[in-house]
């Protein structure tokens, strides 16, 4: 019952457009009257994930599903994959090149921050195949 679903293509070749999907989701949630704290959690977690899809993979697809109980986010890319997820989750671990750092990202804070802002998070990744990040924020 009462499930809303949004899907966004994330263009991996255009850094300037990274965050458009997260921005659109935030706007939708606002319109729907979702509590501000939940909107903030979803926005930050999703934005970090979307930026990762652009700077580390070649873009992909973001799906957001909302029920009265929770908001589920799935970020699926077909990028290079993460060889060691445990290491990638550590604060400060980053393989971002200097070029990314000059754009203001690449401190190795994104994945830990996604974990912090989501209530549940899971990463599936296969090197050479891609990465899928699942995040959930509960509304109640």
């Amino acid at each position: 019952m009462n499930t809303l679903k949004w899907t966004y293509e994330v263009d991996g070749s255009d850094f300037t457009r990274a965050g458009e999907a997260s921005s659109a989701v935030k706007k939708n949630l606002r319109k729907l009257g979702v509590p501000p704290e939940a909107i903030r959690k979803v926005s930050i977690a999703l934005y970090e994930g979307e930026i990762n899809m652009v700077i580390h993979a070649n873009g992909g697809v973001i799906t957001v599903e909302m029920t009265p109980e929770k908001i589920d986010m799935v970020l699926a890319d077909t990028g290079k994959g993460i060889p060691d997820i445990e290491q990638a989750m550590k604060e400060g671990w980053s393989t971002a090149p200097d070029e990314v750092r000059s754009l203001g990202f690449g401190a190795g804070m994104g994945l830990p921050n996604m974990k912090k802002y989501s209530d549940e998070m899971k990463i599936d990744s296969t090197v050479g195949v891609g990465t899928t990040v699942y995040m959930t924020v509960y509304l109640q």
Partner: protein
Amino acid sequence: MNVQDIMRVLDAELICGEDNLDVEVHNACGSDMMSDVLAYVKDQAVLLTGLVNIQVVRTADMMDMVCIVFVRGKEPDADMIALAERRGMVMLKTQHRMFTACGLLWENGLRGGGKANEHLKMDL
């Protein structure tokens, strides 16, 4: 203080957002790393930065910030201004460098967040 006070204290130029100059602000952060802004900032309403690209505006938007101050006279481009305007965000430009701009605002009553290690232990 409000955004108008920030303009005065930093001798800053208004780029956009003239309708929101009387918004009250209490906390600010200064950074050129958006990663750190996303990871450590909580309830800071003002972002001081020397970084100029559209992700600065998106980051501030995701954090519900009300004002971006570009230090060292940096100029946002037309796309950044358009996005900030759509979000009702104020953008200012000051010739002061980061340290001085932050110092002037602190002196006039703005504060930052806690220490990074405190933040990590902090609840949402």
